């Protein structure tokens, strides 16, 4: 609008650059915001700052060699990407993973889901101004990092899984430590939830911000907690079960809009709290029921799957990742493609940002749990 009631007063839009270096975008993201004061007309995302051509690298390093690169696709949830790649290769080459290996995979991935959700929940707190929940959440995450370090030697980029199983078995005494940690975590999660999520200011900032309807979510291919917050009961672990998930008994929480509308930021935030509880349940069941046996199937070193293609979906902390692998019979894949949950979530931000305030954009990005390396690969 360039004219107001008084013809001498000219107003124009402000173009802001929420640049690649910014304390609150989750990773290296850039938004070009056209704003009318505090209210945004549109926020156009600009990604690609973290593009490392991982998909092309896969064509050069071979099937086994690509495993460490999958960690970097999403470094907060590295176990899931490891599992996705391993499952895709196993599907192509028709390899079966021993049961203990599958249990190890489930334990590792569920711990990673806990860690990732703790990070997201803490970051949400920090983005709306309360720095304390971030540090409390990270304290719990540190303990998970210590556990996983004992398991596979790394705190962030794990490279724990191999095609055909996992690299190492659980160290002695690890099971008891893990169970003790879960006993420690459950009441703390409740305490954390009671302290922060029901705070009046937190609810005011999060509720009714950018609600997404179920049809819109499916149309834009939102996945994971984002989709479940809109009321769609879809979890790859239940609907298209892979690994040993059919053995476990857990719920799939969906958003009910208790503090605002279904599918608003508060729902997406609470989804992660509920999912942490479910992960804790799965972990207890997996840790107590582990079968014995080998953890890694015998896989030949120069793996040459027959020339075919497959798609595998893994329920990562950010949504379901679709791994599409085309093999051509040689030891190097012809094409690898990961469709990650954050990529789809970025697509919807431009549409949702119309009419939001700048402070709400930060909340939207945090609630959609967008991580830059996943978008750019």
């Amino acid at each position, binding site marked *: 609008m360039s004219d107001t009631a008084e013809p001498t007063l000219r107003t124009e839009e402000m173009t802001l650059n929420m640049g690649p270096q910014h304390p609150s975008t989750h990773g290296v993201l850039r938004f070009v915001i056209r704003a009318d004061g505090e209210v945004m007309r549109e926020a156009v995302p600009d990604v690609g700052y973290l593009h490392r051509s991982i998909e092309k690298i896969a064509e050069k390093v071979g099937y086994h060699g690509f495993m460490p690169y999958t960690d970097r696709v999403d470094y907060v949830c590295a176990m899931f990407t490891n599992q996705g790649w391993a499952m895709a290769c196993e599907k192509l080459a028709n390899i079966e993973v021993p049961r203990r290996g599958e249990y190890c995979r489930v334990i590792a991935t569920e711990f990673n889901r806990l860690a990732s959700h703790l990070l997201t929940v803490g970051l949400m707190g920090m983005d709306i101004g309360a720095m304390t929940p971030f540090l409390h959440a990270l*304290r719990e995450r540190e303990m998970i990092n210590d556990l996983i370090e004992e398991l596979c030697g790394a705190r962030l980029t794990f490279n724990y899984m191999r095609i055909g199983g996992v690299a190492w078995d659980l160290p002695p005494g690890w099971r008891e430590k893990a169970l003790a940690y879960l006993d420690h975590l459950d009441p703390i999660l409740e305490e954390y939830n009671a302290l922060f999520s029901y705070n009046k200011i*937190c609810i*005011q900032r999060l509720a009714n911000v950018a609600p997404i309807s179920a049809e819109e979510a499916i149309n834009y291919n939102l996945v994971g907690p984002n989709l479940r917050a809109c009321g769609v009961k879809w979890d790859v672990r239940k609907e298209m079960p892979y690994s040993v998930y059919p053995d476990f008994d857990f719920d799939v929480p969906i958003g009910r809009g208790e503090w605002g509308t279904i599918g608003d930021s508060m729902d997406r935030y609470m989804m992660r709290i509920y999912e942490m509880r479910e992960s804790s349940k799965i972990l207890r069941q997996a840790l107590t029921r582990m079968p014995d046996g080998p953890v890694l199937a015998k896989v030949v070193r120069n793996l040459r799957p027959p020339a075919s293609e497959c798609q595998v979906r893994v329920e990562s902390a950010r949504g379901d990742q679709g791994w599409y692998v085309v093999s051509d019979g040689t030891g190097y894949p012809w094409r690898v493609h990961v469709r990650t949950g954050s990529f789809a979530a970025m697509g919807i931000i431009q549409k949702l940002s119309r009419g939001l305030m700048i402070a709400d954009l930060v909340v939207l990005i945090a609630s959609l749990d967008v991580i830059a390396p996943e978008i750019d690969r």
Partner: protein
Amino acid sequence: MQNWIDSLIAAGDFGKNPPRDLVYAAFIFALSAVVFLGVAFPFAGIVSWVERRVWARIQSRVGPNRVGPNGSLQWLADGAKHVLKEDVIPDEADPRLFKLAPYLVVLGFVLPWAVMPFSSALILADLNVGILYFTAVTALTVVGVLMAGWASDNKWSLIGGIRSAAQIISYEIPAGMSIFPVVLITGTLSMQGIIRAQEWEPYHWFLFSNPFCFVAAIVLYVSALAEGNRTPFDLPEAESELVAGFATEYSGMRYLLFFFAEWGNMFIAGALITTLYLGGWQAPRLSANPVVMNVLELLSFNVKVLFLVFTSMWVRGTLPRVRIDQMMSLCWKFFVPISFINMIGTAVWVAIWPEGNRVAGYVMFALGVAIAVLFIQRVMYYLRRSRMEMYLHPTI
């Protein structure tokens, strides 16, 4: 004080027949310099260290503990670091406004120290319009912040500056309205006069003298938080959105001056509330010696003010930030009507009981004590229920 200076002049310390006013003025300047430089700035520095430790304990970590015993010299190290930094002024910025802005903000923080009633004899200038001077001078911060936001030639700084200006100006109104009940009760604007009208027993403080004053004190506290740009109202310097808001383009000592003003403002806001509602420096008459009494009164004042400062830090570590439109609606739709009601209610109360109502004081005090006891009970309940190892050693 004046007699002492007269005796010095008579003794010939200043040469033959000096102009009296100049001598008085020189003394006032020297004393102000002592108070401002010796009390205000070190206080702001030390409170930055205390804030970081308090924050850290709330966030289950330790805070600065390397520089000096328990990190107590951290603020000196920070000050030295900032002074030694390069003074960056953006190319397109307006240099005069850019350089002037921090000084205006610091003026807004430093000038009220002239009327701080530390004890019955320790006050730099006992103006009989003390409160009016106080509110007038703290409003200088707005000009400084707006200047900083505009002169930085940075759209994010501009947003921060405008948010801050809107916030401070809006919250002046509930703050001013909440000062009125006390003025209505005492009939004077002078700080010492208001404090003398209260007595040292808590049930004779103005906080408990009538329910309208109780609510007015709370409104005043929240408005003071908002005026000082403290969480939950720290949108102008909202780190996660605007990097540092209006102070983004500043570096070195100019940047630190903005934050000195914020930390020092905590003390000033606390002092305002203490003077008006918590009895100021009133202390029990334990001795007839004026020096001892003054020390006791100084202690009493500082304890009350520092408790309020601690509460500000506590709130900062706990609550998230409100959005700008929620903050404005809080001010205009809730605080302004409530403060009007307080004012009218107190006027009616004073009309009915011109000498004050002692019984209401005791009742309100009992209520206040009950609330405090309930709060402590809940805290103890949660402490006992939480299964983490807690250790209350504050200076680890």
